[in-house]
């Protein structure tokens, strides 16, 4: 009897330690980023582009990267959305719930979801070569949209799946076509959730470096041209950390802070949206 109790207590102790370790690591990481990032933060960081000698410690900021990431993120999310929405609507409105095709597509999406971002970058690169593109905003958009497409589709699918089938049946019994039901009923019902899915994908897209490293290039200037290289926050952080100058490395911490805050903001927004969404669902 005692051995059983001892074993239970022992493992309970280990369990608590493990759980605490996980939360401790989160706290540690966020705290370290704050502690190192805040002192290096300045208004200039947010509002200026790198001036001459930025990477040797001279003046400037990461506005190029902030704008670049925003442009890239929006472009990639929009492109992925353009594919995700029709696919998800097709899966849920046009196909029977357990048809072979839908099972296959959903499985593919799940598998695509786990592919490393660098592979998407490499594939994006081959696509770019095929079309004669060079490292540019468009190249980055292609690679990142491939990366976030499975994430967006999965999240959207979860949301659209939850639309009760009675709603669709009601619409059909009133004589609508499937397209009309999809657009007028399903879309309206699931809209907050769909937007949340887009938001989640956006957050994932702007944080990724491996997919843009050889598709988007880098630039110290702000540019919205699709065919020019563009700066991104993750790469800005990477390059800043790579210099031997401590002042520039400090800037890497500040940039990390900016990126992390941005992503935390987006996930909080997404969470708030899902909560609001729950109150709008027709029961």
């Amino acid at each position, binding site marked *: 009897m005692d051995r*059983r*109790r001892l074993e*239970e207590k022992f*493992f309970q102790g280990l*369990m*608590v*330690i*493990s*759980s605490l370790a*996980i*939360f401790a*690591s989160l706290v*540690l*990481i966020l705290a*370290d*980023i704050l502690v*190192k990032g805040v002192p290096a933060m300045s208004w200039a960081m947010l509002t200026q582009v790198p001036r001459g000698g930025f990477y040797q410690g001279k003046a400037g900021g990461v506005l190029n990267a902030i704008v670049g990431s925003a442009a890239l993120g929006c472009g990639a999310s929009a492109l992925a959305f353009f*594919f995700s929405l*029709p696919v998800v609507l*097709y899966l849920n409105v*046009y196909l029977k719930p357990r048809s072979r095709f839908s099972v296959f597509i959903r*499985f*593919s*999406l*799940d*598998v*695509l979801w*786990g*592919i*490393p*971002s*660098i*592979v998407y970058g*490499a*594939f994006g*690169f*081959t*696509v770019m070569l095929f079309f004669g593109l060079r490292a540019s905003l468009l190249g980055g958009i292609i690679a990142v949209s491939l990366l976030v497409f499975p994430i967006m589709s999965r999240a959207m699918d979860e949301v659209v799946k939850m639309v009760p089938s009675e709603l669709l049946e009601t619409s059909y019994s009133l004589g609508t*076509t*499937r*397209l*009309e039901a999809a657009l007028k009923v399903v879309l309206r019902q699931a809209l907050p959730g769909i937007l949340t899915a887009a938001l989640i994908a956006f*957050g994932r897209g702007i*944080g*990724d*470096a*491996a997919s843009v*490293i*050889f598709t988007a290039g880098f630039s110290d200037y702000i540019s919205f041209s699709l065919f020019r290289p563009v700066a991104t926050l*993750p790469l800005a*952080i*990477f390059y800043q*950390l790579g210099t031997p100058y401590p002042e520039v490395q400090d800037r*890497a*911490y500040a940039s*990390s802070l900016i*990126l*992390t805050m941005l*992503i935390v903001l987006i*996930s909080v927004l997404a969470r708030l949206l899902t909560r609001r969404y729950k109150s709008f669902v027709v029961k």
Partner: protein
Amino acid sequence: MSRLLKDKAAEKSMMALTACVGLLLFLMVAALLYKSWPILASKPLADLVLGRSWSPLRGCFGFLPFIMGTLWVTGVSIIIAVPVCLLASIFLSEYSPAWLKDLARPPIDLLAGIPSVVYGVWGVIVVVPFIKNHVGPLFKSSTTGYCVLAGGVVLAIMIFPVIIHISLEVLAAVKFEVREVSLALGATRWQTVKHAVLRKALPGIIAAVMLGLSRAFGETMAVLMVTGNVARLPRSVLEPAYALPALIANNYGEMLSIPLYDSALLLASLILLLVTLVFNIISQGILARLERRVA
């Protein structure tokens, strides 16, 4: 009538888009295979996979250091992550009250959202110095801190969310009656978990670990920043290593200027794709089967 036409047109176009999704995986494999063909055709596969020297300028493309590097780092991360995640998941699922479990989800999601560069930065400012100043001397090693262990630790934290999230789902899917029956027979909670619950949940937990492994295998930036990137076979966890994804990311710049270099790097990408594909297909397959059994 045009309403029906619109419906038909929409259906056809949506179906085409959806079919593209199904083709995407094949397209990716095909494209990368096509691009790696030059090097596959010019060197025997054994030389590539087992070759130890990596010297593109001299035409030497031995991938073994990178394959081993990735295996070492991934291995360390799994050794750390699996017990920690398993114990934490069991705790949250079987021992803690419902409110604590709900409270735990946002932090785990937050960990999942932190970009890999930021993990890399953290690794460089915290983990690397720690290993250099405290772990190294303990083992009489003059490590710079940029080593397998650093990569393993950072990777482990990065894969916590994947493993925990799926493990929690799998544990929740085990019906309550199983626990009730075991406890009614006089078992302690731990015995119930060990002998009854885990038994039922095992395939799902294996799937969770495989997905975590797959994620660790393909992780690029964080590993790139803390493992030292030396193309040699590591002999201990305190030695530097060069992971396959890091190889690709580091050298894309010179890729087009040295013959066969681009082909080699795309071959590396292909290897990554195939390995993660295998792991993902198996684990998603397990999870899909579990879902069907519950439904």
